[in-house]
């Protein structure tokens, strides 16, 4: 359940942003989570609601944009969409693929007031 500590980090990002950008309340938090980022979206939503309770983001919506995982195949020089870290290249069967995106965990934007 590391989603809980990730949400504590998100809350810290919100508090830092509130100071820099001068806002009092967060209505929506938009995250970009890679498909291979080892975060369970439903666990993230539960943890987010619990962590943000009685803070500037109390009751805020959590939008999650899932970033598909892409791997680069050095054998056939293609970028391919992958579902697992251990997938072979669907075009030529080569192992391993170099992950080019899909493990990110980012706070993208906030809707604030």
């Amino acid at each position: 359940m590391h989603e809980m500590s990730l949400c504590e980090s998100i809350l810290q990002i919100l508090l830092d942003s509130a100071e820099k950008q001068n806002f009092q309340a967060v209505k929506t938090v938009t995250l970009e989570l890679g498909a291979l980022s080892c975060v369970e979206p439903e666990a993230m939503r539960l943890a987010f609601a619990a962590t943000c309770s009685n803070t500037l983001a109390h009751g805020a919506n959590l939008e999650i944009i899932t970033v598909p995982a892409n791997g680069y195949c050095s054998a056939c020089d293609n970028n391919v969409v992958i579902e697992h870290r251990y997938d072979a290249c669907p075009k030529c069967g080569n192992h391993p693929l170099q992950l080019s995106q899909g493990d990110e965990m980012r706070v993208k934007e906030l809707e604030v007031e």
Partner: protein
Amino acid sequence: MCTVCGCGDSKTTVPASTRLVQVEQDILATNNQHALKNRTWLKQHNIFTLNLVSSPGSGKTSLLTQTINHLKHKIPCSVIEGDQQTDNDAERIRATGAKAIQINTGKGCHLDAHGVGHAIHSLKPESGSALFIENVGNLVCPAAFDLGENHKVVILSITEGEDKPIKYPDMFHAADLLLVNKMDLLPYLDFDLERCLAYAKQVNPDINIFQVSAKTGEGMDSWYKWIESHVDQPTLAI
């Protein structure tokens, strides 16, 4: 999703009283900054640091006590123990004569770089020593949290089943070394060793693998030599 009409485009539907703030910040940025501080300090003090990760019950602490008993006359060793509760593992380590500090994570399922930084400064490992961080027994969460170590070492005991590497690929991908432990039990189990090693290589083609038994000592020499080859200590060259 849009809170007004549900159209899925947040940008077009922000009510007049609210505004959008672009953040574009990595959620793990703070942890990674702490990890970088730890790594820098450890490098400056010439301390070789391993982050040991596994399921609960893989034999990490037994492996560590055996390792320290073997190495302690050549290399000073110290240990940071991570568990949700109890000081039991740190006590087992201290019985070897090595310095150990326990971090109880409470409800936390992994160690983070901030807590480890404080533990390093309390523990004060010696220059030219090996520092072992025994993470919370969990094959999921510790994969994402850099602590500032030189290498993650994943320990898989053969009682757990051969498909752990593809069930928990993030951890086996993040590790540089796999210790397949409890090899003394191989004759008694339906454990497909070849398949396990193939799965590990599939997830991480560069992973080093040693087959060991902390109980009998089988295969442990390779592990000891691997550590000795990485610790920068003048006496080891003699």
